[in-house]
């Protein structure tokens, strides 16, 4: 019975499937992001959240509004540490503008597209908002709601995009391919042809993560490096460690570990420690725990980033729009630096909690470091 269930479901699901898979391996986009990584950003020196890559600017005079304003923010949720740091950034940035800001209304969709659509509708119909910031839970799902909101007020979208050009601007760092290029090239540079790399990923089917992997995979393939496995960890440390242990137990030599997100990087490294093996070359992210371990255990590592400072940019952009200033657009591409051995020491901060994202651009914001859970 159950076997039949499985078969039948599979058949039903693949029935009529003309295999028109969504393409996470877009050479044009890959190329574009590779170029963007190499660009020199424009804008104030040392403030990457206010910088942008490329030329385009959009005029916003029609949105100009005097006096105190209310910003509304529809958040997809705070279901991972990245978003926790980001939300703190956003709130702290808002605190910088107390004179201009009457209120910042934040509603949380708890990771549910359906709820976020309702949330946006309620914010728009509530009539309090002068501008709307949206961090969409998924791209396609939020498109109609954002389109409807665009008719009523200026909308700024960041992190994930929407399939419409109606928002004033869409703020995002270089992107997933960029992340994969940075980490992939680093590992490819450290390994020889024929060496093994283990890919640890959070979950399948998520656009921003799939592109990271496809970029890295392209580079590994080009360099003749074996990807011995691509495993999903669900961001779970225990699972990450177990998966790595399983690979170690199989007796295959793992020369490098590539990760599409660094929140469980230290767990992966622990598996090597517990097995009494030397650390592999590893790509993580800009989390404190990883950076500290990198520093103390002298890893061969890189920390590409998907910087959380974009949450600051969203507020800056919204206020600029209400001031009628020009803002980068229709896409505001932020620089996407990576942490390398050379700059590692600048980013390690013992006061901060383990999963604090170092590229938060928040050191100068009010409430640092306590607001981000750090010790004074």
């Amino acid at each position: 019975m159950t076997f039949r269930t499985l078969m039948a479901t599979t058949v039903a699901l693949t029935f009529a499937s003309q295999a028109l898979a969504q393409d996470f391996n877009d050479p044009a986009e890959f190329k574009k992001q590779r170029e963007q990584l190499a660009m020199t950003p424009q804008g104030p020196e040392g403030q990457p959240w206010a910088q942008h890559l490329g030329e385009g600017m959009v005029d916003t005079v029609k949105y100009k509004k005097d006096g105190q304003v209310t910003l509304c923010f529809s958040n997809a949720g705070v279901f991972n540490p990245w978003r926790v740091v980001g939300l703190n950034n956003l709130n702290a940035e808002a605190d910088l503008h107390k004179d201009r800001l009457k209120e910042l209304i934040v509603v949380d969709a708890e990771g549910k597209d359906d709820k976020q659509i309702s949330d946006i509708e309620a914010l728009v119909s509530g009539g309090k908002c002068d501008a709307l910031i949206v961090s969409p839970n998924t791209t396609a799902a939020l498109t109609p709601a954002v389109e409807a909101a665009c008719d009523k007020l200026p909308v700024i979208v960041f992190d994930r995009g929407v399939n419409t050009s109606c928002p004033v601007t869409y703020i995002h760092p270089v992107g997933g391919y960029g992340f994969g290029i940075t980490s992939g090239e680093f590992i490819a540079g450290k390994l020889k042809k024929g060496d093994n790399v283990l890919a640890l990923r959070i979950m399948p089917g998520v656009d921003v993560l799939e592109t990271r992997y496809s970029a890295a995979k392209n580079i590994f393939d080009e360099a003749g490096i074996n990807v011995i496995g691509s495993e999903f960890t669900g961001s779970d440390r225990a699972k990450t460690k177990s998966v790595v242990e399983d690979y170690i137990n199989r007796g295959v030599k793992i020369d490098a570990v590539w990760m599409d997100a660094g929140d469980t990087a230290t767990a992966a490294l622990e598996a090597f420690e517990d097995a009494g093996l030397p650390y592999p070359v590893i790509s993580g992210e800009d989390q404190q725990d990883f950076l500290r371990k990198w520093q103390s255990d002298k890893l061969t590592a890189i920390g590409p980033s998907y910087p959380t400072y974009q949450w600051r940019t969203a507020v800056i952009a919204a206020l600029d729009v209400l001031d009628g200033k020009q803002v980068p657009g229709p896409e505001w591409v932020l620089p996407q630096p990576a942490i390398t051995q050379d700059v590692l020491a600048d980013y390690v901060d013992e006061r901060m909690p383990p999963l604090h994202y170092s590229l938060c651009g928040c050191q100068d914001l009010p409430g640092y470091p306590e607001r981000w859970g750090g010790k004074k």
Partner: protein
Amino acid sequence: MTTDITRITPRAPRLPVSVLLAGLSLGFYIIIALSTGETAQLSPSGILGLFQRMVALGLVAIGQTFVILVGSIDLSVAALISAVAVLASHVMQGDPTMMLPAIVLCLGLCLMVGLINGALVAYGGINPLIATLGTGLVIQGVLAASFGMLQGAVAREFQVLAYGGLLGVPYSLVLLAALSLAAAFVLDRTLFGARIYAVGGNPDGARLAGIRTEQVILSAHVVASLFAGASGLYLAARLQSGTPWIGRDGIYDLESIAVTVIGGTILAGGKGGVAGTLAGVLLFASLDAGFNMLGIDAFLKQVLRGAIVIAAVAVHAVRTKGHVA
């Protein structure tokens, strides 16, 4: 399990759970809106927005009500919702002419899942929690594994279901209302409804009365799956394209059970109805909207919601005589 032979039960006329619960929910919403100055949320569009929050959960919960009434339960609805949403967007690929085939195919899938669930429970004698947890896992797994090949988006025309409306009333609400009324009608006025209450209330008695209890349980599972399918289709229309996680992220399995029980349907079966369930859904929608207006932090919200679920069930469960496990 009460058998005190001499029980004399004085029955004071009480308001039905559904009316009470719906009143409380709306009261909560209105008070919050007034006290936070969000009076715009009390405008017709604000209220419609509140009701719109009910649609997805409401549709699943109606189906869940059927299975709980018959003494079973369905934990596979969340996975099925995802499957339907993914399948609908994949088959349509934005092409309006594929709308009908997609809907038919999706409902066909639901029919099949419902039949399997029902067969495992009614004929296989497998505890429904385990059976449907199992089928849910199977669906979830197949879905996640094959999602790479199942991308797509629904047709623009199909999204009218979620975004269009008639005289300002969204079609989705019309759909929810119509299906609710239909479900209530079925339960209250049809042979099938009477059989559901009979099988849920006393399976042995129902069997001896000549009811083919297995068929009734099976049918209830099919109904639940079809309603989950309706919810999946609605979500596909609203979200444009389905992902394998929308059901799980929406916690539609546990939430649909929670609202059904909050609405006064007893887990043992045989007592309850759609009105109560919808009132439970309204409670959840009001909490969502109210907490937003209050600006309560997402985590605290979760704490409160948990407490409210317990309290809402305790209010009518505490009068239960005998034991509950």
